[in-house]
């Protein structure tokens, strides 16, 4: 099991080193954005993992409510804790990109707003966990909140773009379903998405194992 974990970290290390080379030496400057496009290879993966961590947290919250096993609560909590780190990285890298391209760190763009709401949900979830002393009640209560707050996300995805004007570049997979991106950029982006997802999985496994080891 330990060698499997070591293998995963070695793969992540190799992939990250390769990606750093590709992002700075292989990816061509983008039309209109120039070299600033390189931020996207960090920003998009961390934003993706922030959402993935939220989904995992909600999924294990549901599993905990159906069968109250300590492991499910630990995965849900650790995923939320990792999620808040990724969402902070996504917010900060997005703000830097925004300042360099639009001239302001923050302007309540729909995607900035959505990620900010995700940050609020994560913060609320972790605050709730910190104020309940009894372990079983904490697990149950935070699972309920994770699922209840999860409901808001689809609504916000529809409402926020109608409420705020957007300057954000179109998503990689745009409305017409076609992928409008340089092939090298696309491959590097997909590899960076995989790399960040692997980092998240490795950290999740490591933290869950060490937390359960500490509590038993």
């Amino acid at each position, binding site marked *: 099991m330990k060698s499997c974990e070591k293998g995963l970290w070695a793969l992540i290390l190799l992939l990250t080193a390769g990606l750093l080379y590709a992002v700075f030496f292989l990816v061509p400057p983008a039309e209109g954005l120039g070299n600033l496009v390189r931020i996207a290879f960090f920003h998009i993966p961390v934003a993706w993992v922030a959402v993935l961590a939220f989904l995992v947290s909600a999924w294990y919250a549901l599993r905990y409510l159906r069968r109250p096993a300590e492991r499910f609560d630990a995965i849900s909590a650790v995923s939320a804790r990792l999620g808040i780190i990724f969402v902070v990285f996504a917010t900060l890298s997005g703000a830097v990109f925004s300042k360099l391209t639009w001239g302001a760190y923050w302007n309540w763009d729909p995607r900035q707003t959505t990620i900010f709401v995700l940050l609020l949900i994560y913060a*609320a979830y972790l*605050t709730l966990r910190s104020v309940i002393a009894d372990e079983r009640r904490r697990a*149950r209560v935070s699972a309920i909140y994770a*699922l*209840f*707050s999860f409901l*808001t996300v689809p609504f916000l995805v529809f409402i926020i773009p109608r409420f705020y004007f957007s300057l954000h570049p179109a998503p990689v997979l745009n409305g017409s379903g076609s992928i409008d991106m340089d092939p090298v950029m696309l491959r590097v982006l997909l590899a960076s998405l995989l790399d960040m997802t692997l980092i998240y999985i490795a950290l999740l496994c490591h933290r869950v194992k060490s937390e359960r080891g500490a509590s038993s």
Partner: protein
Amino acid sequence: MHASLYRAVEAVFRKEARISLRSRSSWLVVLMFALTTLSCVSLLMQGDVLSPRLAAAMLWVILFFSLLSGAGRGFADEEQAGTLMALSVYGSSQAVLFGKGLFMAVLLFALSLLIVPVYLVLMDVAVFAWGLLLLTLLSGTYGMAMAGTLLSALMAGARAQNGLLSILMLPVLLPILLPAIVLTAGCFTGDVNGSYLVGMFLYDAIMTIAASLLFDFLWYED
């Protein structure tokens, strides 16, 4: 079965109403909080006129924070009085949730009917679509009451309850607050887009179903 659930919901509703009328503290605090904030804002504005969008946003911020102090009392009062255990023995989860939630919805809507006219007078705002404004208030306060009832049940037994409800409520209520502000601004200008109201009612319905499903897990702890 349905008749007995209806009677149980009605019993919890009547209990809440009786306690609220007897103690007065729950709604008086909300009302005074709103009036204090309103007069403070009006005082600091020094007679300046807000744009409709800003006036609507300001109104909902005041409503959100003042009604919040009432919405979160549902289970905290029971816990303080030591009656939570008795309620859990005699009341079914759905009766407690809907009895408390519906009473809170009626209370918050009634309070907003007192707060909004004062706001309109103090801020000198004209309303072109009263019916829509009332429906927006109804939908907004209902969502706040149902979410508040579930979340205040979550908070029972928590260490630091002050301010916790606003932290928990804001992300959950944003899908109601944002369209409510757009609709209210529309009521102030006469340029109304009713599709937001449909979205608000839909969200209210989904929150009610979710609260109903999730409350069982909280009420019947093993």
